[in-house]
């Protein structure tokens, strides 16, 4: 697509869309939203970039290799967070019982492991959406 207005508008809007996506991911334990919705917003911003500027330039921004790495390590990161509970002598995926400091409710750091797990799942959802889109678009060509 070579529409001038579309390109400039996307260039203006997309940074804010990505910021919103990461805001939703990082505030998943404080406000409505969370890993899945925030990851979808972040992934869709990358998809919009690829749609407007072309698949090649989109691939330059986030390479396929990086996407597959994030894709593969997202669930592993979740499992690693679960092992914190095992290392502290309690059960898998234990949060408060494993002695993780919960922080003050309402602050950005609160909820113990929830923030870290949400970050991993959010990045994984974003990479999943982008990878699906790229796979389907490449098939089209």
């Amino acid at each position: 697509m070579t529409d001038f207005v579309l390109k400039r508008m996307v260039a203006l809007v997309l940074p804010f869309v990505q910021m919103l996506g990461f805001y939703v991911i990082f505030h998943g334990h404080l406000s409505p939203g969370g890993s899945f919705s925030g990851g979808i917003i972040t992934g869709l911003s990358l998809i919009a970039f690829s749609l407007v500027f072309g698949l090649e330039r989109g691939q330059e921004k986030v390479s396929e290799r990086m996407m597959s790495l994030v894709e593969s390590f997202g669930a592993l990161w979740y499992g690693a967070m679960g092992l914190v509970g095992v290392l502290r002598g309690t059960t898998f995926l234990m949060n408060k019982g494993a002695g993780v400091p919960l922080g003050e409710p309402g602050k950005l750091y609160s909820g113990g492991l929830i923030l870290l797990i949400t970050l991993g799942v959010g990045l994984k959802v974003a990479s999943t959406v982008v990878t699906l889109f790229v796979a389907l678009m490449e098939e089209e060509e």
Partner: protein
Amino acid sequence: MSNKIAIALLVCIGVVVLLAISELPLYGSPDTPAQNYVAERYIEGALSDTGALNMVAAIVIDYRAYDTLIETTVLFTAIIAVFLVLKKGTDRKGEHK
């Protein structure tokens, strides 16, 4: 002949299913087995148990963390399935199939 057996079996199963449905509790009635202490426990203990203000996040990522863990692997499986069907890979010698 086999058609008649099949119809008879279907009628039998249908009667059993309808009997089971007639025994179901009313939708939203307070004394169903689903309305037990779990919801109350979540509402009262979510903040002190997890420190998260968003109760949905507290339930999804703390109380039901196993569920969400498997959910992320569902995404991974979806990607693998799409790659299996669509992606043109290379074999070990690096030649395109």
